[in-house]
């Protein structure tokens, strides 16, 4: 290595030493990409983060323990009680299978690595590969030898990608972004060569991508769009025909092997563009053939007839099939991509997820930094050349920018192309101002393909020879790049490296104090409740309860059944008299809520409460009304001024039950909402406090069993408190199920 570097510094390097140098640089980039994602492991521990990763982790453990076929047929009766979930058929297995395979390989080599550590470190490991894929993709775009390496470096540390791939963030995106970039690389390669081999490889990786992430639809739409744009630009070629048809035929077959996808590629609107372009290409191919066979005038008439007929028949067929129900119309998430207010009105459950919110503009700068302004420059440079693959980058960048603007989460799909385009711009700039003066270019060897090209560039009038401008520009560029690095490090360290299961705070002496209430509560549930005790909580915590507490839940983050979630929302937002029968019907044993009032932890259930109300209102507009939770002046309050509906709701009662006794009389305060609470705390009759964690973040309540002597819980609880019964009413016989 050292020798190679010396060579590179001293004289014109040979091709093999260049290759070696490049490999070494790529290794360093991969190392940097991995290292920058390890903040959370170093600060906290090797732990699975957030919510969805806990499910993936649990599924992976199931896969490793039970083998692939059992995993494939996995029916999980420990979630969505009492419905259960056909987990094996409703997930993207790519992630779990990947870590399962890695695990078994390591086991075969007798390296005893815990499956948890594999899961935690999978995302950083794949980020190294993503950097490499970005290098390959960029090399297809430009002849500049440095652009690929720059793109790899950008890809490795861009916060937009790090946000979903830090160690512990064991989510589908962890491997999907690598697959996305690599599939695009293979597509470009196939298109350039018109090669069936590369097209088939592209389809293979597309299949892997489909198995891994729901975002595969992005590829399914971008590739046809690219093909369509090319045709419209009059760039139809055999190469396009071969590569597209190979990819579509094999890729669609591959994607249909995933049970969760199944027949969607021929049944839903999202997949129709790909099918349409496939047909369109056949047509164009046919026309192309006919044109070579018949004369010009005949051809024109032929062309118009065929085009109009096909388009008309196709469109009519699509409309007819859609209205007949053979093809599913666009899904709700799709509509919310065009109208950002759509979800809030029609599907509150989608809108309630923070990552589905429209992106705030500063987020672009936050996630991409200098790449944001390098992107247009890169696009412009590509536009000047505008080969087929450049059209791809431009199409991708335009679509990606739009989607990233409407949904925070889609910043992820934009990032790779921004890195590619920005690297092209930056390398062009650096090449122009940095690379050798004309006298030196003659010495650059001809072995490298790129060498003659760069020689042309520097020889052209664009070349800059003034030392001052060289120094200024290169110096400025270096400063920007350094700022980019420090920005990325800062963002990663401060914004994206918190496991959110564990909270960190500072002791007065500056040492780190870990607030570990979540795991305290989950471990308590795991050890000290019945194996099949059903836990009701808001869906956010479903996966964590399944993963850490190992107890059945009513709803979880796989929000497939809106009604079931609304039922939980209704139980939380109604009076005890309404909630208790709901909980009994669902055999709920414990209710778990998150309460941040004591600590000032703002992500608690009272702050999420309005979403529960809204989602419940969507199903039971008569029984749950959002308006009732606001005061006459339209304020959302929890103090003395709270509405009666609010004060009587189960969630409010559970949050503040017994809380007043922690404070001197009349001094109880909620540190999140920053208000004084009423001096009288709420009274719970049908449930009782079972466990509260050290900092009160998690409160667990036990649902009382029916009273031994047949009283209702209100009189029983009143009796226990020593209150006299006011009037005796005749009651019917004791019933087990109250509807």
């Amino acid at each position: 290595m050292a020798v190679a570097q010396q060579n590179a510094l001293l004289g014109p390097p040979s091709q093999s030493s260049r290759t070696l140098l490049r490999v070494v640089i790529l290794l360093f980039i991969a190392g940097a990409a991995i290292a920058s994602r390890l903040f959370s492991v170093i600060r906290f521990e090797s732990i699975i983060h957030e919510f969805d990763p806990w499910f993936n982790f649990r599924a992976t453990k199931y896969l490793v323990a039970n083998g692939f076929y059992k995993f494939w047929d996995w029916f999980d009766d420990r979630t969505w009680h009492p419905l259960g979930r056909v987990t094996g058929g409703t997930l993207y297995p790519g992630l779990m299978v990947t870590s399962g395979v890695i695990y078994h390989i390591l086991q075969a080599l007798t390296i005893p690595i815990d499956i948890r550590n594999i899961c935690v470190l999978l995302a950083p490991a794949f980020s190294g590969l993503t950097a490499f894929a970005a290098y390959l993709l960029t090399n297809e775009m430009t002849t500049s030898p440095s652009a690929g390496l720059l793109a790899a470096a950008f890809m490795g540390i861009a916060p937009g990608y790090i946000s979903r791939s830090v160690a512990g963030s064991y989510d589908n995106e962890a491997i999907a972004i690598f697959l996305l970039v690599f599939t695009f690389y293979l597509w470009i390669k196939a298109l350039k060569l018109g090669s069936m081999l590369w097209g088939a490889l592209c389809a293979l990786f597309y299949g892997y991508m489909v198995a891994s992430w729901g975002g595969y639809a992005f590829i399914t739409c971008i590739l046809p769009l690219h093909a369509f744009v090319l045709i419209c630009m009059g760039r139809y070629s055999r190469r396009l025909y071969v590569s597209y048809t190979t990819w579509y035929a094999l890729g669609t077959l591959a994607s249909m092997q995933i049970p969760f996808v199944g027949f969607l590629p021929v049944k839903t609107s999202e997949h129709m563009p790909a099918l349409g372009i496939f047909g369109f290409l056949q047509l164009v191919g046919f026309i192309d053939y006919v044109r070579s066979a018949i004369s010009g005038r005949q051809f024109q008439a032929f062309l118009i007839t065929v085009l109009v007929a096909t388009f008309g028949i196709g469109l009519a067929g699509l409309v007819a099939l859609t209205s007949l129900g053979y093809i599913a119309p666009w899904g709700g998430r799709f509509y919310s991509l065009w109208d950002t207010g759509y979800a809030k009105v029609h599907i509150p459950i989608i809108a309630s997820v923070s990552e589905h919110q429209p992106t705030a503009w500063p987020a672009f700068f936050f996630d991409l930094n200098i790449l944001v302004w390098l992107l247009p420059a890169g696009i412009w440079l590509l536009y000047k050349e505008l080969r087929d693959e450049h059209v791809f980058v431009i199409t991708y960048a335009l679509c990606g920018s739009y989607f990233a603007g409407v949904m925070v989460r889609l910043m992820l799909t934009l990032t790779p192309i921004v890195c590619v385009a920005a690297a092209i711009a930056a390398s062009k700039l650096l090449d122009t101002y940095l690379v050798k003066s004309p006298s030196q270019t003659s010495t650059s060897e001809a072995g490298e393909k790129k060498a003659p090209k760069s020689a042309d560039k520097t020889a052209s009038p664009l070349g800059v020879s003034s030392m001052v401008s060289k120094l200024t520009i290169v110096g400025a560029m270096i400063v920007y790049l350094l700022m980019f690095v420090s920005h990325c490090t800062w963002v990663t360290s401060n914004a994206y490296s918190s496991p959110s299961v564990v909270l960190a705070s500072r002791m007065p002496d500056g040492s780190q104090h870990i607030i570990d209430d979540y795991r305290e509560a989950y471990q308590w549930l795991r050890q000290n409740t019945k194996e099949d005790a059903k836990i009701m909580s808001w869906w956010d915590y479903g996966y964590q309860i399944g993963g850490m507490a190992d107890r059945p839940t009513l709803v979880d983050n796989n929000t497939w059944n809106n009604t079931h979630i609304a039922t939980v929302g209704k139980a939380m937002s109604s009076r005890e008299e309404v909630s208790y029968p709901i909980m009994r019907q669902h055999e709920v044993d414990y209710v778990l809520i998150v309460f941040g009032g004591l600590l000032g932890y703002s992500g608690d259930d009272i702050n999420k409460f309005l979403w529960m109300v809204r989602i419940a209102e969507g199903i039971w507009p008569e029984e749950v009304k959002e308006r009732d939770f606001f005061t006459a002046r339209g304020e959302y309050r929890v103090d003395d001024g709270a509405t009666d509906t609010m004060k009587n709701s189960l969630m409010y009662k559970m949050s503040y039950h017994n809380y007043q006794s922690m404070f001197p009389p009349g001094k109880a305060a909620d540190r999140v909402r920053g208000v004084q609470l009423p001096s009288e705390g709420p009274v719970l009759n049908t449930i009782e406090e079972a466990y509260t964690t050290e900092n009160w973040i998690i409160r667990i309540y036990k649902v009382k069993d029916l009273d031994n002597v047949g009283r209702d819980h209100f009189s029983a609880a009143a009796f226990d408190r020593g209150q006299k019964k006011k009037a005796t009413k005749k009651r019917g016989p004791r019933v087990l199920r109250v509807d």
Partner: protein
Amino acid sequence: MKPLSIATALFGIVSTVLAAEPRQSKDILPKDFKPPQVFKNANLVHIISLEKNYAKEQINAVIENVSPELQDEYYVPFTADQLSRVGGFEVKDRKDAGAGRFVADVAEYDPLSDVQYYRIRLPTPLKAGGQQTLGISFYYLRAYKALPALIDQTDEQYLSYEFSIYAPSAYPTLKQKTEVKAGSAKIPDYTKLAGTGDVPEYPQKQGTKLTYGPFDEKPAGASSPATVRFEFTKPVIHISALERDIEVSHWGGNVAFEERYTIQHLGANLSTQFNRVKWAQSQFMNPNSHALKELRVPLQVGSDDAYFTDTIGNVSTSHFRSNKREAVLELKPRYPIFGGWKYPFTIGWNSNAANYLRRTATGGFVFRTPFLEGPKQAEGVEYEHIDLRVLLPEGAQNVKLLADIPESSIIEHTVGLHKTYLDTIGRTAVHIKARNLVDEFRDRELIITYDVSSSITLRKPFIVFASMLAVFTLAWAVGKIDVGFSKTKQA
């Protein structure tokens, strides 16, 4: 560390020498076995100490051979229930400290009988009419019942213990006395007996001590059930399973320990659900509680890199102090453990191999470690099952081991193979299963001797190197193969 000579000398004096091969089967007694009436207890003092959360019983007996022949087998009876809970059975000669511990084991006969026996083999047979003073000590696990069984989280906890006022014996006893030392001076209930002589009533109570007797001659098997109930506002810690793994690495110069505990609180359960407000207040005002809040695990000096985890990750509420004088791991479970609650966890640490490993003059190795290193609590810790596994280096041979704990506590021990970290033949794994031990056996040692040849030590680096080389060669060879179609001009 003590010099090696002491370690090797230990082989001589410790009674329990285990060979590496499986133990030979015991001779099984006939079904209708009754201990031959060849002894009598001339004098017997039975001390029951209930100060820890296990019961320790000591029987000091002057035994006398009343038969005309030499006798060397003395039997101690237990009920079937007691036999499953008794452990740490040890016998010494009270008069002769140098005689070491006597061999004692469970006499196997009818498994359905309610009376079972431990058999003590006297090292030198007792001649007719001869006397010997035996000091028999053993422990009962799961010894108490909480009474009341449900209490509030700030209440005091009371435990009751059932025993026999007359010491269990298979032989007639001429004179005996039973002392009960309770966990505290608060003893609200205990069985009372009419006194004899100038004592109006048994027992006599002095502080925490109750004394029954002395009684005059009682026949073999005499028993008089009694109960004592005393205050014990401390956690009743019961470790239902301990898995202790020790990995000896010659290359790393390191000994890695990992212990997995399944801990349970056998005291009174909570009568109402756990109340955090009350708990926070009682922590502040009255830290005395029957909940388990903290465990202290003193480790060998020089231990390092300690960790404390459970099934869902690191438990951040632990402290590890390691300096020249001590290494203490202070564990705080995620939640206070009340009666009936469980908390399984894992701890582990590393230590320099030099502290544990010695080379003998003949080129072999001696590895010495405490058999148990669990928590050291004022209220005591009991272990129901212990599964100890020592991984020796790959290719270790001639394994001999010696465990300084009562032989009757060891269920089985085997030497097998375990593959890990790129092993090809597997490491020699010594596996010992023991049961019913208490933390008083913390300082007992486990000594293992073995031989490793240096060629086998170099085996692994060589294999790793060779396989890497093979992979590279293969990759190079595959790269040389031209799998493409013959190049034609691109259209």
